[in-house]
Every structure is written in structure tokens, then in C-alpha cells.
């Protein structure tokens, strides 16, 4: 890696900013501002810094509507909002998807709009930690905060997660390296374990790597639980791991003072899906008969957890909430975005601060190409190519303030550092404006009847 000169050419500094990248929500960042642009970021990882500094890269600056020739053409806000409101008001199975890269304040407006038109509100959990949320509903949620891990944990387990790549500051700020109140020597006071079929960068940083075979998660966790309960294991090799290793690991986990298990998509997306998390939660419950253990899901986007917490609080369900019958319903496989799209049920799709074009399976994107798509976002991406109406929003945590929830459920206020581009609008304002215009259209329809 080449040496980079420190940035000295800036007008002002904004301290204690919150990173708007991953679920770590690092709230110790310092932005260096010049000409109302962030030209440097201190303390952030490369992923977070590049997202914050390159806010103008392929930036959506003006509202656009796709014309009859299939090209996106610039338009004014009134025309774009009216057209979007008209589509939403006339939809039979609208889906509003995304929300994980915007503020809770925007979600509040989203619920109001979704409930009024009988839409499905869903977020990225539907393609990432949805199984974790199902397992939490089945087996409970023995969660702790990242601060507790930093100050207390002497054993940290990463499973199905490559934190070194996906959450680069996680180990440095919260789990492996920081000196805590009861862990004065930092890394030397902790045992780090990685359970993952792959020898990842996180595994390389760990003391113990347990490389069980792909899709062997459920059997492995069950064997680990059986060993913790003192059962003599009969199979010589369980999910590719010798039984002696399983027993040694069970003993080590029982003999810690405070442990934390961080789990990622490797667990939620292998064969047994939510049952892997279910087994993980029960493993933690079993371990708490001997010592103190907790778990934390490694959430991806900075506010993906926020949507789930906010929706659970407001509507009783964490994601995939269907208002079509006038009251909230939730059923995996039925009210989730991917299922609705692949079944070709959706007739209007609004994507807010997300990029389904880049992440959804082909079948879902194929249907998106055939229906009206409204995009509320700050950057041009594959979803823009699918969009019929583009409404340029603002960068939460940089250009507008807002609330987000960290992966452990701690709410964090994200402050504003610079002004947004003049032609863009707050996400919250856009959704509120859509709500007002949809209500007006519905009122006119009732009056005309």
C-alpha cells in the first residue's frame, strides 16, 4: 500500500461524526471539510472513508423520469413527485423496499405512506439477517452491547462472518484489540475463535479456527451443545471437525469469564438457515448455565437494524410487513420482497436507499424491469437503470442528521456535517411529500365518485 500524504488543505473540522457504512456505526469520526465537501476522514476504515468522501461520485442530483424512448430525462420536483404519487395511489400490490441506508425519521414517514396505501414495507434483512430475526422470535435474543464486549469479553467467537473484510473496525474498536476495563492488555487478554468453512482474514487473526464443512453448521452446533451438556460424542468426525476439537472448544467456552458470539451471513444463508441461528442462540443459553455469554448479529448496513427495531416497535413485525388488508401482516415466503417479485405479484416498486438491481436474484430483477420503479437514492447504480422515476435524496450522517441503530441495538444520532446539493432533498421530505400527494389523489378520487 502506497504512502498517502496526510490531508492538510481543509477549511474546517467536524468531530464526533458517525460513519454511514456498516453496522458498527463508528461514532468517533472526524471530517475534514473544504468548500462544503468532505475531503478527508479520520479514524474511519477504508470502506467508510471512501463512501463518505466520494459522496459526489455518480451522484444523482436532479429528479428524472424515463421517457417513451426509454431514457431518463431531467425534470422538476413537482412533476416527478406527482408522477410517483400517481403510480403509488393506483397500485394494487406496491412494495416499498430498502430503508437501511436512511434515517429512522424517514422510516416513520414510510410507515405512514405504506399503511395509507396498503403496501408491503421490507428492508435488506429479507436478503441478509431475516433468518436471524425469525430465530430471535423463536428462541429469544441474548444480546449485549459492543461496549460490554470491549470491557468484559475474554473470548470472542466469529461465526459465518469475515469481520476483517466486512466490518474492518469491528475487531479493532469493539472485540479483539481494544483495552477494556476488565481487559487491560487488550488482545493478550482475549481468545479469538473463528468458526467458518473458509480460512478467512478473520480466521488468520484468530487463535483458533474451526473450519467445519459448508452447510454443516446445524450439526456442528448441535454437537457442541451436546458436548457442553456432557454427552459423549459417538461420531469421530462431526461436520468435518474431529470430536476431540469439539469437546475442547466446548470446555474452553464453558471456562471463559465472559464470551460473545458474533454471527454473520455464513450462518443465515447456509442450508438450515434460521435453525442455525436458533441453534446458536440455544448454545448461548446453554453456556449461560456455566458462565456469561451473549451474541450479536453482524449487521451490514448502518441502519438495517434500525428498520427492524423500528418496525417491530411500531408494527410488531421486523420486516416484510404487509398492509394490504389494512392491518400489518408478516409471513416469510409470502410478504417478502424477493418472493413477491419472483412470483410477479408486485405492480409498483419503490426503492429507498438500496440497490436491488445489484443484489437481487435474476428472477426478481427481471420482474423489476417490467414494472414501474421509483428510486429514492443518492447514487447512480444498477437500480437507476431499472427506475422509471428517480428522486435524488441526501446522505444521512453527512448532509442531513438522523437516527440509526447500531448492530447491537444502540441508537446513535448521526449529525450533519455539510449542506446537501441544492437540487437534492431530504429522504424524509421526499416520503412525506409523496404521502401528501397520494392523500390528495385519493381524496380527489373519492370526491369524483
Amino acid at each position, binding site marked *: 500500500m502506497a504512502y498517502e500524504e496526510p490531508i492538510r488543505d481543509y477549511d474546517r473540522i467536524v468531530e464526533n461524526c458517525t460513519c454511514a457504512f456498516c453496522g458498527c456505526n463508528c461514532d468517533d469520526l472526524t471530517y475534514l471539510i473544504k468548500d462544503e465537501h468532505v475531503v478527508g476522514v479520520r479514524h474511519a476504515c477504508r470502506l467508510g472513508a471512501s463512501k463518505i468522501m466520494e459522496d459526489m461520485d455518480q451522484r444523482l442530483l436532479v429528479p428524472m423520469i424515463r421517457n417513451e424512448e426509454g431514457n431518463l430525462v431531467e425534470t422538476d420536483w413537482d412533476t416527478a413527485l406527482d408522477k410517483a404519487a400517481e403510480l403509488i395511489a393506483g*397500485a*394494487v*400490490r*406496491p412494495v416499498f423496499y430498502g430503508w437501511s441506508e436512511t434515517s429512522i425519521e424517514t422510516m416513520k414517514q414510510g410507515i405512514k405512506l405504506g399503511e395509507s*396505501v*396498503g*403496501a408491503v414495507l421490507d428492508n435488506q434483512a429479507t436478503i441478509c439477517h431475516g433468518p436471524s430475526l*425469525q430465530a430471535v*422470535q*423463536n428462541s429469544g435474543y441474548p444480546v449485549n452491547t459492543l461496549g460490554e464486549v470491549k470491557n468484559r469479553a475474554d473470548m470472542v467467537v466469529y461465526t459465518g462472518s469475515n469481520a476483517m473484510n466486512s466490518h474492518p473496525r469491528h475487531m479493532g474498536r469493539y472485540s479483539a484489540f481494544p483495552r477494556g476495563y476488565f481487559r487491560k492488555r487488550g488482545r493478550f487478554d482475549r481468545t479469538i475463535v473463528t468458526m467458518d468453512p473458509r480460512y478467512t482474514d478473520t480466521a488468520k487473526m484468530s487463535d483458533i479456527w474451526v473450519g467445519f464443512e459448508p452447510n454443516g453448521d*446445524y*450439526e456442528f452446533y*448441535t*454437537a457442541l*451443545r*451436546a458436548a457442553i*451438556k456432557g*454427552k459423549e*460424542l*459417538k*461420531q469421530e468426525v*462431526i461436520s468435518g471437525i474431529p470430536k476431540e476439537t469439539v469437546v475442547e472448544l466446548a470446555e474452553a467456552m464453558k471456562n471463559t469469564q465472559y464470551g460473545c458470539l458474533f454471527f454473520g451471513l455464513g450462518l443465515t444463508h447456509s*442450508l*438450515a438457515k434460521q*435453525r442455525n441461528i*436458533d*441453534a446458536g442462540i*440455544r448454545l448461548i443459553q*446453554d453456556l449461560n448455565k456455566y458462565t456469561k455469554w451473549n451474541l450479536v448479529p453482524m449487521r451490514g448496513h448502518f441502519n438495517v437494524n434500525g428498520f427492524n427495531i423500528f418496525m417491530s416497535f411500531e408494527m410488531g413485525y421486523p420486516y416484510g410487513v404487509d*398492509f*394490504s*388488508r389494512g392491518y400489518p401482516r*408478516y*409471513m*416469510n*415466503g*409470502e410478504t417478502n420482497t424477493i418472493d413477491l417479485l419472483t*412470483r*410477479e*405479484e408486485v*405492480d409498483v416498486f419503490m426503492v429507498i436507499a438500496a440497490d436491488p438491481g445489484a443484489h437481487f436474484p435474476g428472477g426478481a430483477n427481471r420482474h423489476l424491469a417490467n414494472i414501474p420503479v421509483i428510486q429514492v437514492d443518492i447514487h447512480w447504480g444498477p437500480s437507476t437503470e431499472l427506475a422509471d422515476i428517480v428522486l435524488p435524496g441526501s446522505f444521512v450522517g453527512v448532509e442531513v442528521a438522523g437516527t440509526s441503530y447500531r448492530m447491537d441495538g444502540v441508537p446513535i444520532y448521526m449529525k450533519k456535517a455539510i449542506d446537501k446539493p441544492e437540487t437534492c432533498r431530504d429522504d424524509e421530505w421526499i416520503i412525506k411529500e409523496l404521502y401528501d400527494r397520494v392523500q390528495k389523489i385519493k381524496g380527489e378520487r373519492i370526491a369524483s365518485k
Partner: protein
Amino acid sequence: MKTITFNQKKISSIALEFDELIPDEVFNWKKSDFDKYMVPIGNSRFPLSDYFDIEVEGEAESPAQVKMVLNGDLGRVKYIGCKMTDGQIVTNSSVDLHCGAEMSGGSILINGDAESYAGREMTGGELEIMGNVKEFCGASYIGDWRGMTGGIITIHGNAGKQLGECLSGGEIHVKGDCDILAGIHMNKGLIRIDGDVTRSPGGQMLNGDIVINGSVSRFLESFNQDEIVLDPTIAGKSFLGKYVKFTGDIVRNGKGTIWLSAEKNRHLL
């Protein structure tokens, strides 16, 4: 006896919800009532007559005297027979999600496949599926620890993942193969699988019986091998052949039993 025949004339891309069209609700409906009825589709309601031609023959004084016959492509018709307490439903096609969910009586015959959540949380009655069934058949609603508590589900084809999840009573009989985690978190009842099981049946089960006549590719470590029984009687039913009895799941101090065909599962003994 009253026979109500639904002949499909138009297919909707958005699923129709049939939870209001069960014998309990329609036993005293006339054809004109069906013509007036608006069926839920997405966030709106549309005339049922746009999608089905309805024929009504005979009279009924109670749901028990009703037979509903559904013809056409029902792949986008959800909640067929949901919460029904009596009567009979026959579909001559595959059906969408939640067929027979929460039913407490009567019978449903599916002449085709069933999507996920068939017989979810049913408490009584009979659900017979002539084809395959997808995931969570006879299971619980997300977060509940009680799945199906009574009745009988018979599947002539194969069953998907987590069959009988949290099963708390009743019987599920799969005549074909079964995917992973059959009977997970099972509390009571009987699951019979005539074919093979992919892996991990009975995970975290507390009680009840699972009988597998085919082979199990991978079995959980948390079950104890108990004894080998010839021609056992399980949950009041007689089975022919040699079965190995496993008890567990010990990670939950469970007392459930899994009976594996000794002949087909020598690799596990």
C-alpha cells in the same frame, strides 16, 4: 348436500385470498351472493365473478353439508380452507400458500402440489395432498412454539424443509422423501416418512415420534441409540420390520423418539 363449483376463467398475477370462502362462511350463500362477493387481491377487492364462474347446486343448513370444488390453475389462490371447521374442499390443481392453515375440521383434498405452510397450525380435520408439498407443512406461525396440534396430513409426494416444525399433536404421513429438519422442535404427535430424509430429523425435539422407513443421510449427534425393536407399535400404530429407536434431543433434555428402519440405516448404527 350443497356443491359449490368454482370454474376459473381468469388468472390473476397477484394472489387471490380465499380465507373468507370456506364452508363455514358460504354454506347458506346463493349464486347471487357469490356474484356480489369481492375477493381480496393485494390492497384492493375485486369481483370474484371476474375470476371464477360459480355453480351452486343443492342446499345446506350447516358447513358440514357443503362441498366446494375448485377447478383451474390455483397457483395464485392462497388460504384455501384456512380456518375451516367443517365441510369438504376439493381442488383439481396445485394450490398456493397456507392451504388448510388453522383448519379445525372437515377435509381438503388437493389433486396437485401445495405451496408452503400447508396445514399450518391445524387443530383438526384431514388434509390430503396428492402431489408434493413445500416448506413448513404442519408448522407453527413464526415465533410460536406450537405447530399443528391435531388432525391428519397425508402427502403422497415429497415434503420440503422443516415438515411438522413445532408439531404438537396430530399425524403427518409423507409417502415420498423429506427434506432437512423434519419435526424440528417437535413437542408431540407422529410423523411418518416412507421415503428418505436428507438430514437432521428431530432437531431439538422434546417429545413425540418420528418414524422413517427410508434412509437418513446424516443424523444428529444429540440422540442416544436405545434399542432395536421388531414390528414396533408406535403411537398406537403397528409397523412391520426392524427399527432402531433413538431418544432425544438431549440438548433440550427431550424425550422424543426417532424410529429408523434398521435395514436402510446401517451406516448410522
